[in-house]
């Protein structure tokens, strides 16, 4: 009896103890456990935005998103991955590159992420897998939007491409905004305008069970798609330039002189950017990377070439503007030039010499001796000073990544880079666009546009306008500067000489004269291979890759310029015969309505 009462007391106390424990868990720590419970069941799922489209100036689609099917494996749900892949390969072709990509991606992703083993399945392959799906736990076909570049290599160097986000990029991007995104712009417009093209991620709050299956959507915040871009690029011009370059390697840059808009930007050879979207096979990549033609190299903004004689109008202008020479002042050309007190002979391309030369003739006939003398008179400092204002030696600031600055040599540069003083002979070489002097095709086109605009320098740009989310279009800003201390007479004199290069009887580009509009131009030839002092350059005996580069710059119409262009044909020989006709074809496309048909 007594013991039963003791037992009853123990029972009562113990039950109170349990109740206290429950009080502790359910009331005192309620919030903590509620959070844990929510963490268990509510997951935030990112919804990636659709990437913005890219159009050319006529509304032709250059970059779009196409639905594509990929076969994906979720390692966590797949019992034996090696056997699964083996069995899959019996119904759907899976090659070595697919396996390698899978292996590589698998190391980067989490166990519950699905990883593509095959991409771009055909409809038939999708159907064949669907029938066999029950045999492959953890494997499924996923439909997603893949970036597609319908014009392939025509736009490769301009647009660049998107590719899977890599580790470095992962550290730079806003992780939350990219939480559902797998691809990012790697170069070209795709990279420069990544922020606009990407859009903002949407979020979906979902309830999941212990196995991670989504049961219902609690809250949905839709993604904001990326903004569409409209380029200045005109695919008619781009295609014409590609075609005109034929089998040559080279670059063409054409600029709308009124806006700075890039009408054509060609680097040949190109490549198919679609290969990079889902990861290029290492074999294909190697062959692109190791090709002597360097198809991955964007010559138009990264290629640095000696400008050769194309720089002569600018040097002439420098002489006039700096007041060291008058337009009609004459110099005698015996076919070579010697610095006072030096033995070394600086040769003219014309061995017999041009005779008496004023600036106009020196531009039309591209007399080297005239420019040796002019450069010496100017001196490297004034030369460097003036050419800098035209944009040589610095990036144009185009909205593309990877642009190179070229090289406009100066005393200071030489002291820093070479730890040597500047030699007078080097001024002579600079005066004819040789020696250390390097420019990119885009730089040449920009300087030509500045010349065409009589001193108004405009920053070149790819994108004309952006479609904003509210349905309106936002035009990109034109940035221009007017060169100071410009004497219009000097500019007209030089421009007139350039017009005679095309339209004069003895002009080096007279073969591209047009009956429909006036053209001002200048040919150039850049040495790739240095000919020794007493040797003669013979085109026939020099192997192809050592032949001279052919250059040509031009703008048109002369009176009211609309287009400025620079053409470089690698190992093309003479500028007048090879590069100039290419420029003419592009200008025709732009300026003659009938030529467009």
């Amino acid at each position: 009896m007594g013991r039963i009462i003791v037992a009853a007391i123990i029972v009562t106390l113990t039950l109170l103890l349990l109740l206290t424990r429950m009080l502790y868990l359910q009331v005192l720590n309620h919030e903590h456990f509620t959070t844990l419970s929510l963490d268990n069941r509510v997951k935030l799922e990112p919804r990636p935005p659709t990437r913005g489209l890219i159009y050319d100036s006529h509304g032709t689609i250059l970059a779009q998103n196409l639905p594509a099917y990929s076969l994906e494996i979720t390692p966590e749900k797949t019992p034996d991955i090696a056997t699964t892949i083996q069995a899959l390969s019996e119904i759907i072709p899976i090659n070595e590159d697919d396996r390698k990509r899978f292996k590589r991606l698998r190391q980067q992703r989490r166990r519950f992420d699905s990883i593509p083993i095959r991409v771009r399945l055909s409809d038939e392959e999708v159907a064949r897998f669907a029938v066999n799906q029950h045999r492959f736990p953890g494997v499924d076909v996923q439909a997603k939007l893949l970036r597609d570049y319908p014009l392939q290599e025509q736009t490769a160097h301009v647009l660049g491409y998107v590719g899977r986000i890599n580790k470095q990029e992962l550290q730079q991007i806003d992780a939350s905004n990219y939480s559902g995104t797998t691809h990012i712009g790697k170069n070209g417009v795709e990279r420069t305008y990544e922020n606009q093209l990407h859009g903002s991620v949407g979020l979906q709050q979902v309830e999941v069970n212990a196995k991670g299956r989504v049961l219902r959507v609690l809250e949905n915040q839709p993604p904001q798609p990326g903004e569409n871009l409209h380029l200045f690029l005109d695919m008619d011009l781009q295609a014409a330039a590609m075609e005109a370059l034929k089998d040559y390697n080279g670059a063409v840059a054409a600029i709308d002189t009124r806006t700075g808009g890039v009408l054509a930007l060609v680097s040949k050879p190109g490549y198919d950017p679609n290969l990079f979207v889902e990861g290029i096979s290492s074999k294909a990549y190697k062959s692109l990377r190791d090709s002597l033609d360097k198809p991955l190299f964007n010559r138009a903004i990264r290629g640095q070439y000696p400008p050769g004689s194309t720089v002569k109008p600018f040097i002439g202008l420098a002489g006039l503007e700096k007041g060291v020479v008058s337009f009609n002042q004459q110099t005698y050309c015996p076919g070579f030039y010697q610095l006072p007190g030096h033995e070394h002979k600086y040769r003219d391309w014309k061995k017999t010499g041009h005779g008496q030369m004023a600036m106009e003739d020196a531009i039309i006939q591209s007399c080297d001796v005239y420019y040796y003398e002019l450069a010496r008179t100017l001196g490297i400092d004034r030369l460097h000073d003036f050419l800098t204002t035209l944009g040589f030696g610095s990036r144009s600031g185009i909205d593309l990544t990877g642009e190179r600055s070229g090289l406009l040599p100066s005393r200071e540069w030489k002291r820093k880079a070479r730890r040597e003083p500047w030699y007078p002979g080097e001024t002579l070489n600079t005066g004819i666009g040789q020696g250390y002097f390097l420019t990119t095709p885009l730089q040449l086109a920009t300087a030509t546009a500045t010349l065409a605009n009589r001193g108004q320098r405009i920053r070149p740009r790819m994108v004309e306008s952006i479609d904003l989310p509210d349905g309106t279009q936002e035009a990109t800003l034109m940035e221009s500067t007017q060169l100071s201390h410009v004497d219009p007479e000097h500019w007209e004199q030089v421009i007139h000489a350039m017009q005679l290069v095309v339209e004069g009887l003895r002009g080096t580009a007279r073969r591209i004269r047009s009956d429909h509009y006036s053209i001002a131009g200048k040919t150039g030839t850049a040495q790739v291979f240095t000919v020794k002092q007493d040797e003669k350059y013979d085109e026939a005996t020099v192997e192809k890759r050592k032949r001279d580069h052919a250059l040509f710059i031009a703008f048109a119409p002369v009176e009211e310029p609309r287009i400025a262009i620079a053409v470089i044909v690698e190992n093309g020989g003479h500028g007048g015969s090879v590069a100039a006709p290419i420029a003419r074809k592009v200008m025709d496309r732009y300026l003659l309505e009938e030529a467009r048909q």
Partner: protein
Amino acid sequence: MTGISFTQESQPARPTGLLAWLHLDLPLLTGLMLLSGVGLLILYSAGDQEWALIQRQLVRLGIAFGVMIILAQIHITHLRRWSPWLYIAGVLMLVAVIFFGQTGKGAQRWLDLGFFRFQPSEMMKLALPMMIAWYLAEKRLPPKRRRLLAAAIMTLIPVLLIAKQPDLGTALLVASAGICILFLAGIGWQLISLFAVSMAALGPVIWFFMHDYQKRRVLTFLNPENDPLGAGYHIIQSKIAIGSGGLTGKGWLNGTQSHLEFLPERHTDFVFAVISEEFGLIGVAALLALYFFIILRGLYIATQAQDTFSRLLGGALTLVFFVYLFVNIGMVSGVLPVVGVPLPLISYGGTSLVTILAGFGILMSIHTHRKLLPT
């Protein structure tokens, strides 16, 4: 027995009608039925609203209540006479399990008798307290040391056999039955403290003999966060379920931990977590009150028993019921290690249900046959 005055008082209130004729105790029956009803309600939620599950549990409840009613009819003197034989048969069957037993869930517990599978350890939950009560009731209480030792050995034999299967939960319950009887028999407090001290000292020894999975359970109990996805998962998820229930709970059928399958064993051993999550502290308190009522009624019946055997057995059966409750809730709420003990009358499953209600049948027999004895 000093309960004569009670008997005299209750004599005029002798119940009549069907319940009396069936030898059933109304308060106890009401409590048990209520509890079973609550249990079905919870199971409907915990078992994802599956009717088949409820139907199977209803059948089991029917059988178990049937067994209870049958046992209530049997006069306690018969039960007392059968006690030693039941015990001996039970021990023999436990030995048989070791040699011929069926294995299930990593433990050898079942004896296949051809027509049905039988779990001798379950029978021991009744046979052992009956045996000890019978043995100690032979002589005057409190028992002498020699008899205490004998009773301890009688308890230890089946406990060790069951622990070897291994079935720690049942061994614990059987042992607690023996200990409860010894306690009720009035063993000295010095002995009780000595027992407590020696148990503490035996801890490391017991550890040495434990199976790996048992050791893991103890370690997990001590620090569940060490292994949140493995052994600690049960207890962490269970605590989340309980804690997130709060004061008023998430509502019937609305528990997220259970319905989204985060809570394992949610309709068997961990069903208490479902109750806590869906009905909150208020629901838990109400449930504990119901249990408390049943336990108090059981203990009251024991105090009213007219002979030592009945008093010891009745008290022990009630206390074992309490141990079930305590071990289960203690485990689910993380104050005791995970031991496979169901929540009595609520957890899904048949075997323990039958044993528990059989125990209450004996309690009812003790209470209702009392008046037929000459006082």
